[in-house]
């Protein structure tokens, strides 16, 4: 459904997107996970034809996006990161306007607006001006505005930014229902739990590059099946922590004052603790972490997602 090949985009000297490629099948939710500034929104802007890439190609439903832009635009719906609605207009008026710019006949559009407002649970507030809505409600209308023309592909660019947990759950339900209706979705976020819950496949993007992609299980396999033993030291003696990492017979990574060691906690922990005491390091806390996306991200980029 979506084929992206060697896409690059620079702004001056900054390479925002650096040769990314991926394929997305029909009905799939594909997550783009990365920190702010990783290149997710630039990718979405290229996929929605707002930015022309410096190089590379995009095919949507087997059609080249930049040679047949208008026909591609008709099959895509975009939910931008910002609340792109007219504050002074009501939800109904906003949806009517955004439907009309896609040329939807009035009667069909009115029915569609009615259905969508029911679907997102806001039919009771349809006459109220958007400025009176909560952040979460605005987000839901923001999504509805992208669905009016019944797109085959939906881009959701950080759709849960700044919303409360309850509204976030409502948005997850909406996305899951859209998937069940067969929509192909690209979902960008910097929240691990969102991609873990919603996405069939995930691409981890950092500094404009996809550093890893696959299903959640495939990504976890990248760091092995073993649990992580995470040691938090009472000392900030980095040299000693570094020394410990060198002498450990296991794969380990240092972040801040912590050492994450990939080992079997039942079998190997004793050996680890012996080496710690040999170096006179005192442990403030010890944690056992199952392989997760955060670990994968750390493994692939060398930094935590919130850095």
């Amino acid at each position: 459904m979506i084929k992206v090949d060697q896409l690059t985009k620079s702004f001056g000297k900054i390479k925002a997107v650096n040769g990314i490629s991926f394929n997305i099948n029909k009905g799939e939710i594909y997550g783009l996970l990365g920190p702010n500034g990783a290149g997710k929104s630039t990718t979405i802007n290229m996929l929605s034809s707002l930015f022309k890439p410096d190089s590379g190609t995009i095919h949507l439903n087997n059609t080249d996006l930049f040679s047949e832009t208008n026909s591609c635009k008709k099959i895509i719906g975009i939910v931008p990161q910002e609340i792109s609605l007219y504050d002074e207009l009501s939800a109904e008026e906003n949806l009517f306007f955004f439907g009309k710019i896609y040329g939807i006949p009035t009667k069909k559009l009115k029915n569609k607006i009615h259905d969508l407002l029911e679907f997102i649970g806001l039919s009771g507030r349809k006459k109220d001006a958007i400025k009176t809505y909560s952040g979460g409600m605005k987000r839901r209308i923001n999504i509805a505005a992208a669905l009016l023309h019944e797109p085959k592909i939906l881009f959701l660019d950080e759709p849960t930014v700044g919303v409360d947990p309850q509204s976030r759950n409502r948005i997850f339900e909406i996305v899951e229902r859209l998937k069940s209706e067969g929509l192909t979705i690209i979902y960008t976020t910097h929240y691990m739990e969102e991609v873990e819950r919603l996405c069939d496949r995930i691409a981890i993007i950092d500094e404009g590059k996809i550093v890893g992609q696959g299903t959640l299980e495939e990504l976890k396999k990248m760091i092995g099946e073993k649990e992580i033993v995470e040691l938090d030291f009472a000392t900030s003696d980095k040299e000693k922590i570094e020394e410990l990492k060198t002498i450990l017979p296991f794969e380990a990574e240092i972040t801040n004052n912590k050492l994450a060691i990939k080992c079997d906690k039942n079998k190997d922990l004793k050996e680890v603790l012996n080496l710690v005491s040999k170096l006179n390091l005192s442990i403030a806390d010890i944690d056992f972490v199952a392989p997760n996306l955060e670990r994968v991200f750390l493994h692939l980029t060398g930094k935590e997602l919130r850095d």
Partner: protein
Amino acid sequence: MLFTLFKKDMTLFLKDKKAVLLTFILPILLITLFAFAFGGTGKKKSNPRTYTVLVTDLDQSDSSKETIKQLENLKGLTLINKNLQKGKDLVKKGERLALLVFEKGFSEGIKKTHFFKTTLYFDASREIETRMIYSFLMQHLSQNQGKEILKNRVNSFVSNTFSGMPPKMKQNIINTISSENNASPIQIEMQSVMKEKSTKENIGLIQAVVGTAIMMLLFSIANIGGSLLDEKENGTLKRLLYAPFKTTEILFGKMLTALSISIAQLVVMFIFSWLAFGLNIFKDVPALLLMILCTAFAVAGFGIFLVSFVKTRQQLNGFSSLIILTMSAIGGSMIPLFIMPEFMQKMAVVSLNYWGIQGFYDIFWRELSIIEIAPRMLVLLGIGLVMTLISIPLFKKNIISL
């Protein structure tokens, strides 16, 4: 603490180069314009104003030619020869201030009837200027031809009444009387080129209505254009760009809004002027409607040009104030053109306000036909078209590049 806050604010202010520009350049520009408009240029003694007057010599006598030659040599007066009809038309259309006509029999009049047969046709909308020219002409003609006429008149009177008077005594009497300027025989008949009823219209009201209407229209259209920048800032423009239509349609959509609101605003302002002040807006309704349409088109084009030229609301506010106030000052919205020096009046043609104001003058004051007003309408349409064409690449460069 106080100094720290002051320093921070000054640093922020100085970093905003456009704010600095507007704080200092806009007032300087306006002071300069008003100073020129009112003819003051500091301590230096200002040069006398130069008037350009059309002249028609129907007499074609040595006397008339000699008088015209003398007038041509006067500092502060430029004469342009035109035939009578063409000259009257130019004055009627407001393109020239006045036409001085040396009537047939001018030469005979000086010799026999001792009457200085001249007419000064003038644009009644510029009466103050015309009076100044009249005084100027009277002053110079009295000093030259006036004495000659008086001499002839006294000579004729003395010769007829006291036929036996010795020549020396007669000459003394003539010289004494003709040296007194308080009984100048010079008479220049003043005649407005407008229809009689027009001169009863309140010229001040027309100036106030059309001058203000166009200036305020420019401000409101700049504001409507600005909503495009608001859309850019709040993200709705992005959503419009996702839709399957050409980006220029967004610009033209905004222009259509600006055009409709401009038309509505002008119509409302004229109706209000009719109801509240009795401005007769029904003199030529088709011409008025066409003029409203052309002015609205020019203003709408100007509005989208402004909005395409800048990148943010703040920039728009600054530039629109600068450009609109400047155009209004030189175009006659703030100060009537006739009190400005001639070079300022010539400069006024670069302002949209000028063409709009003069067009409405043509309808309400000069009572010209649609055909006669058409050139001004075409200029306004041209302004709108050029502004729109320039706006398209600017819009793509400054607004669409998200």
